[in-house]
C-alpha cells in the first residue's frame, strides 16, 4: 500500500470520529502551543536584554573606587578615594588591551531653567566617555577636548532632563541657559535616548559637563582622586574585555601596592560579562519553561496512545478482515502508525497557531520583539510527528500482531 493512500485512509478514519480526533489532538495542540509560546517569548526577552546592553556600549569595563572597611564592615563603592587620575593615565599608556579611558565624576545637583527646576545626576567627564558609551547628540553637539582644557561652562543634557526643563527634547533647548548649583551653563546638545539600564536606572536623566568644569564649579576636593565616580574603559577589540579586565586588575594591584592575597580596593565591572550572564539566565529560564511545557507534549502523546489502543480494539474485526484479504502485518502496523502521526501532526499544526498567537499577545504586552525562526516551526511539526511515532508504535504493533482468526471472531 502506498504512503499517499495510507495517509488518505488515515485521515478518513480520523474524520469518522471528529470529536474524538479533535480532543485527542488537543493535548498535542496545548503542548506544542506552550513550547512555541515559551521559545518565542524567551527569544524576545533575550533580544530585549541584548538591546539594553548594546545601548550601554559594548566592550565596556567600569572601574569603581573601593569601599571603606571599618572593623570588617564595608561601606560600599566610592566611600574612599582609591582611584586617581594617575591610575587612569597609567592604564591608558601602559595597557595595549585598552582602547579608550574616561573618568566620570558624579554629583546630584539641582538644575534650574527659565521657569522649571529638576534635580538629577550631574557628571563631569571627557569626550572619550561618549565614544566609549557610543552615545551621540540628537541635537546640538557633544563637548570636545578644548571644552575640557578651558573648563567651559557647557552641558550635555539627557532626553528626560530636556523634557523636565524645557517641556520637550527637541532642538530648541540647544543654546538655552540652565543653572547647575546656581552656576549658569549653556546647553550644548541633547543626547540620544538610551532608555533604561537592566536595573531600571534612567540613562536619559543625566547631565554631562566637562570634567575640569565639574571639579571647579560643582565638587571641590582633591583633584587627583576619582571618588563618587568611576573610570570607563573601552577594551581594545582585538584583546577582548576579559584580557583587558585582567590587565587592569594587575596594573591597579601593582600601583596600589596590594599583597597578592589582599582584597582589591577597587571594583571592576565587565559589562560584556554581565550581559552574557543576564542572557544566560534568560536562556536558562526559557529552557526551563519550555521544558515544563514539553511535559504536556508527553501527556498529549499518552493521550494519543490511549485513543489508538481504543481504536485498535474497536476495529479488531476490521483488522481481521484486512488481514484475511491479504494485508501484511506491516500494512496494519503502518496504517495505525500513520493514523497516530496524523493525529499528533494535526495537533502540532494547531499548536503552532495557538503558540504564535499567545506569544504575539504576551510580547505586545511586555513590548518585547517577536522573533519567529522558521526552523522552530519545522522542529515543532517534526517533533509532534515524532511523538506520534513513539506513542503510536505500541498500539500499531498490537494491531499488527493480532491473529486474523481471533480478530475476525472478535465481538
Amino acid at each position, binding site marked *: 500500500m502506498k504512503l499517499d*493512500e495510507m495517509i488518505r485512509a488515515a485521515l478518513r478514519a480520523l474524520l469518522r470520529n471528529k470529536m474524538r480526533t479533535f480532543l485527542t489532538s488537543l493535548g498535542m495542540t496545548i503542548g506544542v502551543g506552550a513550547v512555541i509560546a515559551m521559545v518565542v517569548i524567551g527569544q524576545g526577552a533575550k533580544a530585549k536584554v541584548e538591546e539594553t546592553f548594546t545601548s550601554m556600549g559594548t566592550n565596556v569595563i567600569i572601574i569603581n573606587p573601593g569601599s571603606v572597611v571599618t572593623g570588617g564592615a564595608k561601606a560600599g563603592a566610592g566611600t574612599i578615594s582609591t582611584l586617581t587620575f594617575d591610575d587612569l593615565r597609567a592604564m591608558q599608556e601602559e595597557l595595549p588591551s585598552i582602547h579608550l579611558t574616561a573618568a566620570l565624576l558624579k554629583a546630584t545637583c539641582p538644575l534650574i531653567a527659565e521657569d522649571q527646576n529638576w534635580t538629577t545626576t550631574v557628571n563631569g567627564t571627557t569626550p572619550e566617555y561618549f565614544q566609549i558609551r557610543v552615545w551621540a547628540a540628537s541635537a546640538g553637539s557633544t563637548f570636545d577636548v578644548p571644552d575640557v582644557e578651558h573648563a567651559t561652562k557647557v552641558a550635555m543634557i539627557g532626553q528626560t532632563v530636556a523634557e523636565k526643563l524645557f517641556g520637550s527634547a527637541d532642538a530648541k533647548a540647544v543654546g538655552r541657559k540652565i543653572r547647575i548649583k546656581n552656576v549658569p551653563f549653556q546647553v550644548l546638545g541633547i543626547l540620544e535616548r538610551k532608555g533604561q539600564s537592566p536595573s531600571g536606572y534612567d540613562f536619559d536623566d543625566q547631565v554631562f559637563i566637562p570634567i575640569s568644569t565639574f571639579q571647579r564649579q560643582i565638587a571641590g576636593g582633591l583633584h587627583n582622586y576619582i571618588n563618587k565616580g568611576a573610570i570607563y574603559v573601552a577594551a581594545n577589540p582585538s584583546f577582548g574585555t576579559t584580557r583587558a579586565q585582567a590587565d587592569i586588575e594587575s596594573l591597579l594591584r601593582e600601583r596600589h601596592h596590594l599583597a597578592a592575597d589582599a582584597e582589591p580596593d577597587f571594583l571592576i565591572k565587565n559589562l560584556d560579562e554581565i550581559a552574557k550572564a543576564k542572557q544566560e539566565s534568560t536562556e536558562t529560564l526559557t529552557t526551563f519553561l519550555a521544558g515544563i511545557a514539553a511535559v504536556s507534549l508527553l501527556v498529549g502523546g499518552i493521550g494519543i496512545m490511549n485513543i489508538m489502543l481504543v481504536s485498535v480494539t474497536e476495529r479488531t474485526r*476490521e483488522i481481521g*478482515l484486512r488481514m*484475511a*484479504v*491479504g494485508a501484511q*502485518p506491516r500494512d496494519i502496523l503502518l496504517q495505525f502508525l500513520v493514523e497516530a502521526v496524523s493525529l499528533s501532526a494535526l495537533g502540532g499544526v494547531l499548536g503552532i497557531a495557538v503558540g504564535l498567537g499567545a506569544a504575539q499577545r504576551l510580547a505586545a504586552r511586555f513590548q518585547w520583539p517577536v522573533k519567529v525562526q522558521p526552523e522552530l516551526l519545522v522542529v515543532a511539526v517534526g517533533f509532534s510527528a515524532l511523538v506520534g511515532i513513539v506513542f503510536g508504535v505500541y498500539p500499531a504493533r498490537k494491531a499488527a500482531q493480532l491473529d486474523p*482468526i481471533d480478530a475476525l471472531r472478535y465481538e
Partner: protein
Amino acid sequence: MSTAVVALEQVSKVYRTGEVCVEALHGLNLRITPGEFVAIMGTSGSGKSTLLHILGCLDRPSSGRYRLAGHDVARLDRRALAQVRNRMLGFVFQSFNLLPRTNALENVELPLVYAGRPRRERRKRAAAALERVGLASRLFHHPNQLSGGQQQRVAIARALVCDPRLVLADEPTGNLDSRTGIEIMELFESIHRQGVTVVLVTHEPEIAAYASRLVVIKDGTLCSDEPVTARARPFAAASGAGSGP
C-alpha cells in the same frame, strides 16, 4: 489429471491450552478439483471451522500437507500466508465484514489495494465485480445504505475481485432472512457455473443442498463425502414459485 485446487493429506490440527491438548482435526484427507462447489457441514465442535481456517490459510496445520493450487502452503509464515490469501483466496463471512463509511466500490477494491494494483485498474475491476453480483447501480453506496443481502453481495464481489482460485464462504446466509439467503445462494450457484471453485461451510442442509458435493465432518475426520444428487430444495422451489420470472 488437472491440479487439484485443494489437496489436504493427513492434516491434523492440535490446539494446546496449557496442559490440555485438543485435536481439532485428525489425519484429514480432502481433494477439491477446479470448478467444484463443495459444502462442508458438521456440528459445532466437529472441526469444520478449523478446516475452513486451514483451507483459508488463516491457520497452519500441525502436521500433514496442504497444497493449494499446487503450492505447498502448510509451512509458510504469516507474511507469505497473507500473500497467498490475497492472490488465491476470496472470503465471504457470515457478518459481511464491510468497512463502515466506505462505499461499495472501495470495499471491493480492498484486496487489490493490498495487491498493490494501480488505482485505475482497481476501480475498473471493482466496478466489474460489483456488476457481476448485480450491484452496478450501487457503486457509491455505503454499507449502511444497503440491505443485508446487498451488503453480502458487496462482500462476494470483494471475494471475486482478485480472480481467486478458491472462494471460501463461512455461513454466508447466517445473518440473512431465508428469502435473501436463497438469493445469495443462487448468486453462489451462478458464480459456480461461471467456473469459480466454491467451498461453503454451513449447518443448514437446505443451504448445503445448493452445492454439488457435500462433505460432512465429525470429530475432526471426514464422516461422509458424496455428490449432492437429490436436489430436493424446498426453499429454492418456494423461491422459484414466489419470485420467479
